[in-house]
């Protein structure tokens, strides 16, 4: 009788350990999966940049510098071998440059009204919205993972598996501030 109770307890404890182990792995994979979707969408946006540059080039003679800048940034982002920190910084710079182009377009009513440009703008808006959604999904997955890593009892298991807190995808200070147009075109 005592033996059976012992086996019962052992099985029960074993199940809990399995559960925690698998749960942690699941949460880790969710984070990676969510990051991959952010990454895919960022690439999708990079793909739109050449089209945008081609569409605005003939109109925006004065902003040639900005256009060259964004093309260079895109090339860098796609070149591979970029660390994730660098990727985030590059992406922030691209955000800034794109914002600048969109503001500058206001000065060219003809360009702004053209079908081609409007279609591009829609596509860009779409991707931005999707990126923001993917970023939020990523942050939610990371929060779940971090909770599991820090909360009892899963923190013990996480310690043994050498899992550490992960970073959230944060919007940098510079991006939160209002866009300063004159500043943008100095680059």
């Amino acid at each position, binding site marked *: 009788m005592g033996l059976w109770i012992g086996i019962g307890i052992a099985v029960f404890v074993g199940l809990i350990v399995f559960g925690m182990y698998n749960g942690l792995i699941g949460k880790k994979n969710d984070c990676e999966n*969510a990051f991959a979707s952010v990454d895919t969408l960022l690439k999708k946006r990079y793909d739109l940049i050449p089209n945008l540059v081609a569409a605005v080039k003939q109109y925006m003679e004065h902003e040639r510098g900005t256009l060259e800048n964004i093309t260079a940034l895109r090339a860098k982002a796609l070149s591979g071998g970029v660390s994730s920190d660098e990727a985030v910084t590059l992406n922030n710079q691209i955000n800034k440059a794109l914002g600048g182009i969109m503001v500058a377009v206001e000065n060219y009513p003809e360009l702004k009204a053209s079908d081609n440009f409007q279609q591009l703008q829609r596509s860009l*808006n779409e991707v931005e*919205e999707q990126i*923001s*959604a993917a970023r*939020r999904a990523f*942050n*939610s997955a990371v929060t*779940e993972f971090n909770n599991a890593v820090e909360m009892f009892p899963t923190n013990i298991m996480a310690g043994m598996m050498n899992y550490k807190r992960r970073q959230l995808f944060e919007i940098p200070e510079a991006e939160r501030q209002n866009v300063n147009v004159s500043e943008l075109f100095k680059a």
Partner: protein
Amino acid sequence: MKSDEEFRSYFKKALKPVLAEFEAKRKSIVSKLSIFGGIIVAIAAVALVFVLRNTSDMVAVFFVLIPAGFLIAGLWWWLTHDFVHEFKLAVIAKIVAFIDPELQYQPTGKISRSDFTASTLFKQRIDRYKGEDLVSGTVGKTAMRFSEVHAEHKTETRDSKGRRKTRWHTIFKGLFFIADFNKEFKGRTVVLPDTAEKLFGRFGKVLQKMNVSRDDLVKLESPEFEKEFAVYGTDQVEARYILSTSLMERILNFKRKTGVQVSVSFVHSNVYVALQTRKDMFEPRIFRTLLSFDLVADYLEDLRLASGIVEDLNLNTRIWTKE
């Protein structure tokens, strides 16, 4: 949106004369009701006295009361049915046109049962489906339609004597709204009023996660939104693409403004909104005067509740790839 002041002058100019007509009809209905109703009651009373003198069997009493009840119900239907329909065509249609001349109103139309089930908001089997007061049209760039809907399912039980008893339970009663959503998407996202989390807090979330009849739980970052709603979806990223921070805010504000149970779903490129209300909307009253601004203002408010959703959820903003 037009101001209340405009509606007041519209009421005086366009609605009051029509209401006066219906007020006269209403009075004649009330007098007919009292005459015929009085006759039925009198006959029933005489029959009852006669029955009670001759027999002590209480079943006989029902043989008098049940037909009398049916007669009165029939009388009610016969006298008011056309009146209600005409009233809706004349008055409600005018108020709908006041809100937006582009909108169309059909008193007997309704959101179809297949549209209702396509929303996936309500999972129970539907045994009886009714609806009326369909409003449809395009507000700005957004095609939309809504109507009153009452969906029920039945349960059958047998009592100790083996008699079958059928009971009807309401699945949903209120306004059901469908509009073309302003973003493109493939999956399914459902926003339901949150009951578990309100009752059990953190543990409620565990319960929501185990809800097998729904898709995956989507945890959103707004604590206020999470307190009021539980979100389920087929795709975590897509759910957040649809429920942008601003849309969450808008849904929350809409819920607070209306003060009713709100459920929202996003399926097949449409947005479905179910507003649970208790009263039967857009009906004329029989025993009180129709010549009242408050009554008509009430119709307007109910109609605006639904037709305003397009604005409340910002569906006319078409800056994404879907036009």
